[in-house]
């Protein structure tokens, strides 16, 4: 039978910006997939010829969700160019802000986006459906309301550290633009402690200390059966319905995992790197199958054979990256505004699952070893990541000295190259920067979604979630909820499209509001 290619408009409106997934289905199974980012971003070209410091203000506006992530990468790139020695207290505050963004994003993605698919009518006959509606129904679900309330309080930590909200640009080369007071730190401690209390009660159903004893699939199954609090917690409910839905059989992906590493360790901290090595809390690495390799950023290339840019065979390292849009002349062949980043020529998945595998997290490593990298393990890694990070946030707050140093004047930003690589909510984020005569001559950004949602590369190899979709059974092409489970397990985030307050009767393509 010939494969019947179906353009499926799966409801990717819960993705930032425009994303269109096209799949070929044969015998109710996806046999091929194409991921198209439908909006040109052009931030790299906007930044060209601007003042060296402008990236601190402009790049946080790449995205309305990950502003602190981009600010962090931009500041790190400028630190590198200027040779800045960031003081320990400033490192802690930068890390704390980024961790705040990560933790709130992990929870919001779960209960405002991923778990919403459990309320899809496709699951209406399931015995757990009424409970899923009670928890995740948009605007009304108990967990939805609590998530908006609790994450809204937590992000006040960034407002306190940044001194401005939203779109703070408080990180500067050399440290922070301002120092928190003792009162600020106490407020942050209270906010993190409150959030931790809610996370333990509602998400885990146990203390973080108890959760940290869960180090294998066997431990996890025993934990699940231990008591009703565990079973009824969000993690427990997710495990039960995720298995019932078959998430553990969906979305295998490319089996290469990338982490840039994140959260530089202050010189005087008592915390040690996850995984036991390196100078950052979260280690960098590339996991090819089960082989963990060191990470070398010079091995990155961005290829554009299938992207709407001028052809450039072999691709380029971002140091020499080009962003030359070319949307004509290859219709039907090129199909995405996203480039195709590759590491050592290979596609790579990034995100919490990759990050925790590279860190050799015992629970995640055991789960993936036994169950594989699937939509279930991918979402589980995200949902439980705050259990690792909340105690880190508390510890760094406790170590911070309000009377300490938060800024060391760096060298003038006249000329040089640098990069800022970090892990952010959706995975590996990199900013590469070259400055001449105090002006930006090259700025390249590779976002986590560029890795995960990339189109095919020069060797016609699919990107990670394109590959993860292949093999997925689709019961109802009119409501392909299975494809939503797979793609959303990567927490896709394309850049904001045109939005405006609308009555919905002028421009049918833009019927959403935005902030």
């Amino acid at each position, binding site marked *: 039978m010939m494969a019947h290619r179906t353009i499926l408009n799966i409801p990717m409106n819960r993705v*930032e910006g425009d994303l269109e997934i096209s799949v070929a289905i044969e015998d109710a199974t996806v046999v091929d997939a194409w991921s198209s980012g439908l909006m040109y971003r052009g931030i790299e070209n906007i930044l060209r010829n601007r003042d060296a410091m402008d990236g601190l203000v402009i790049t946080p*506006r790449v995205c309305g969700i990950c502003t602190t992530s981009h600010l962090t990468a931009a500041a790190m790139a400028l630190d590198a160019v200027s040779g800045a020695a960031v003081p320990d207290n400033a490192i802690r505050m930068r890390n704390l802000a980024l961790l705040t963004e990560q933790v709130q994003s992990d929870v919001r993605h779960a209960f*405002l*986006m991923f778990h919403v698919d459990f309320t899809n009518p496709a699951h209406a006959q399931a015995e757990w459906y009424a409970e899923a509606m009670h928890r995740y129904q*948009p605007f009304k679900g108990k967990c939805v309301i609590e998530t908006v309330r609790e994450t809204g309080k937590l992000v006040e930590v960034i407002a306190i550290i940044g001194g401005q909200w939203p779109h703070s640009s408080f990180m500067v080369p050399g440290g922070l633009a301002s120092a928190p007071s003792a009162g600020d730190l106490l407020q942050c401690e209270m906010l993190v402690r409150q959030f931790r209390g809610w996370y333990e009660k509602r998400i885990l159903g146990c203390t973080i200390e108890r959760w940290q004893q869960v180090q294998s699939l066997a431990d996890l199954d025993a934990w699940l059966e231990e008591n009703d609090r565990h079973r009824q917690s969000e993690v427990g409910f997710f495990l039960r319905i995720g298995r019932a839905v078959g998430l553990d059989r969906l979305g295998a992906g490319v089996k290469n995992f990338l982490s840039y590493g994140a959260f530089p360790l202050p010189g005087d901290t008592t915390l040690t790197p996850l995984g036991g090595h390196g100078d950052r809390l979260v280690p960098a690495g590339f996991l090819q199958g089960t082989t963990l390799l060191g990470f070398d950023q010079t091995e990155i290339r961005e290829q554009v054979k299938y992207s709407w840019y001028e052809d450039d065979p072999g691709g380029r390292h971002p140091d020499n990256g080009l962003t030359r849009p070319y949307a004509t002349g290859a219709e039907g062949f090129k199909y995405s505004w996203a480039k195709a980043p590759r590491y050592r020529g290979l596609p790579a998945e990034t995100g919490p699952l990759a990050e925790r595998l590279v860190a050799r997290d015992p629970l995640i490593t055991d789960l993936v070893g036994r169950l594989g990298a699937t939509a279930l393990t991918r979402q589980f890694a995200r949902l439980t990541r705050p259990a690792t990070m909340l105690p880190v946030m508390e510890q760094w707050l406790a170590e911070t000295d309000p009377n300490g140093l938060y800024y060391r004047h760096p060298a003038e930003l006249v000329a040089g190259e640098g990069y800022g690589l970090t892990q952010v909510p959706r995975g590996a984020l990199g900013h590469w920067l070259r400055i001449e005569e105090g002006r930006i001559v090259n700025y390249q950004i590779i976002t986590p979604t560029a890795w995960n949602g990339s189109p095919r590369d020069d060797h016609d190899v699919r990107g990670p979630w394109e590959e993860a979709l292949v093999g997925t059974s689709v019961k109802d092409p009119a409501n392909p909820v299975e494809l939503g489970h797979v793609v959303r397990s990567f927490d896709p*985030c394309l850049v904001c499209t045109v939005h405006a307050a609308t009555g919905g009767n*002028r421009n049918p393509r833009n019927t959403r509001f*935005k902030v």
Partner: protein
Amino acid sequence: MKRIICIGNRLFAPDATGPLVYDILTESGPPAEVEIVDGGLAGLDLLPLLGNGDRVVFVDAAWGLADEPGVVVVDEARLLAASDPAPYGHGAGLPFLLRMRRQIFPDAALPEVLLVGIEGEADPGALREAAAVAVRVASFGAAPWWQEQASMAKEGG
């Protein structure tokens, strides 16, 4: 407390109305009792700003909220009626915030919410007018402006 929150993306011209009005407001020096916020693309993170105060005025580009190009002022009910009740997405915005805030602040006396938008091209004249209207409706509410518009339309007609 009155608050004006300018929203949009200054890097994308069709969506830059809010940020450009923000620039005008900060340069001109608004009344002391009105707080001006660069809301940018902050989305759900603006929720804490909707839980207190007397009145919040959003400034944004507008599509389909008026029959003619120019500045338009709409209230919360009209805004919600005109919007798609879509669930949360990274692009979710004002309607999502408005729908959620009564759930998030169930016992609070919530501020009145208004939107000042520019329908059609946001040229310099329209931007200046929107800035002035935003300050006016933040200070005095929308009713006087609506009455004035109705009178002008009657005289014009």
